[in-house]
């Protein structure tokens, strides 16, 4: 019980740090790595290791705005948020490259399919965490992500 609460707290902090944008960064620790305590396992022996840029040059929304999506009305991926409540790690939250999985206050997940790369990573990490909360498929032909420069 306490474990999962702790975990959830950490998750929220990780998420916040992931969302931090230019100008909104809190002041750094004396060690210069303000986010170090948020990342269990990040090496602390070598201060030069894991150098992070001082700010991320693109707000996440601007990053996603570079990609064209021909959005389909019905979601092609369905997330069973009740199953997510039992998931201790919720790895989809940080792993999804489009940042489409948002933890909710009740420990569930809300998912938005609109800016999905259709990469399939969420299904893998969900199953890897022992879950089966994700019903995964492709959008109808002609819909979804359209890449031009990749």
């Amino acid at each position: 019980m306490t474990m999962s609460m702790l975990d959830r707290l950490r998750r929220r902090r990780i998420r916040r740090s992931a969302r931090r944008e230019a100008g909104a960064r809190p002041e750094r620790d004396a060690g210069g790595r303000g986010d170090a305590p948020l990342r269990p396992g990040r090496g602390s022996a070598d201060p030069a290791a894991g150098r992070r840029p001082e700010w991320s040059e693109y707000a996440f929304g601007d990053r996603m705005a570079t990609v064209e999506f021909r959005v389909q009305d019905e979601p092609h991926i369905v997330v069973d948020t009740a199953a997510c409540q039992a998931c201790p790690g919720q790895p989809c939250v940080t792993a999804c490259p489009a940042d489409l999985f948002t933890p909710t206050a009740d420990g569930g997940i809300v998912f938005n399919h609109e800016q999905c790369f259709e990469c399939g990573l969420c299904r893998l990490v969900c199953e890897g965490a022992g879950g089966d909360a994700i019903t995964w498929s492709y959008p109808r032909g002609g819909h979804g992500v359209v890449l031009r420069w990749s």
Partner: protein
Amino acid sequence: MTRFDVVVVGAGPAGSAAALTAAQAGASVLLLERGPFPGAKNVHGGVIYGRVLDDLVPRWWEQAPIQRWVTRRSLMMATGAQALSVDYRNGAWAEPPYNGAIAYRSEFDSWLAGVAERAGARLVCSTTATALLRGPDGSVRGVRTDREGGEVEAGVVIACDGANSLLAREAGLRPSGSAEDFALGAKEVLALPRDEIDRRFGLTGREGAAMEVLGCTADVPASAFLHTALDTVSVGVLVPAADLARSRIRPEELIAEVKAHPAIAPYLRGAELKEYAAHLVPDGSRAVLPRLAGPGILVCGDAAGLVLTAGPWLEGVNFAIGSGIAAGEAAAAAVRAGDTGAAALAGYRSRLESSFVLGDLHRFRDVPHLMRSERMRRYPRLACDAAERLLTVDNPRPKPGVTTVLREVAAAHGARMRDLARDGWQLLRSFG
């Protein structure tokens, strides 16, 4: 119901090569693509090794939409603050038959699909294959698509539907994939003026650079790449899916970490983001399907896990094309012989075994695992530290000898000379 000799699902390099080969062999071919155009859903790092096309599309380099030709390849080993590079240049690679081509997938895949169309294959885009049609004996007889009246009968279905291959899974050829079998590739395409790219990377004309980087993401065994197109640079990371999930680091943060590295930042300063993208890469040492063919169906390219992932090097497009060619030949031969059962299609695998596709994958099968190991991951840092000791002149102290430096640096990283020798030998062996 409409019928084709061969229905190819997916107009990536594997699918278009299969469709082209089968059409050239006289089969009637339908090539289905779920994107609005071929390449719309596809991602690569930038480099295509095109020699595999030499026979299929003679003088392909004169028609393919190539941005630059790789004349500079480098491997950089990095720590947070240091970098040690091996930099190879070859001007001859800027001339036919070339070695590596840098292209956008939206253009390259559309071009190759167009070649298949001109050879007689029928390309239909914006159409997703949703299921396999089966005969009473369970053999694959065609596909269902997400369109009205969308069932198509086929002598042979060739599944070239990419890393997630839902069709291979449905055919029972692929076990439900696991995070251990895949890596995530995430990349940014950054725009810079062409002459600025030439200047920063030391290129002229159509010359291009492909750089691979090891060790610059501290806590995740990710490798990074930088590839130059005419007026964009693509920079990205490849990270094993399981490690990414465990690390709780976001993919775009890894890219940011690479871009901020002091040895990489100067190449990219002031560049403007054109596109961000992500895609799965099967780890070819683990994800290769044990069975590449079933009754009425063949699996190619990423769908079959046929990707060479040897440390920082990644070759998928050439393996996709190579397997597509073999599948197209096998399918056309089976249709001609009037037998598309599993035994008749088994020739596909032997074709792959005698070609570079399974040959190279077999040769380098141990590399990915070795590169991910904790032991190997310390080498970029070890190499950088050794370089630092050797290259720092701290007179009046006399210079240390090379063996002394190696021994000391190894010890500082908790290894003995014997470990170094053993790992070096193992690495050498795993590269064949």
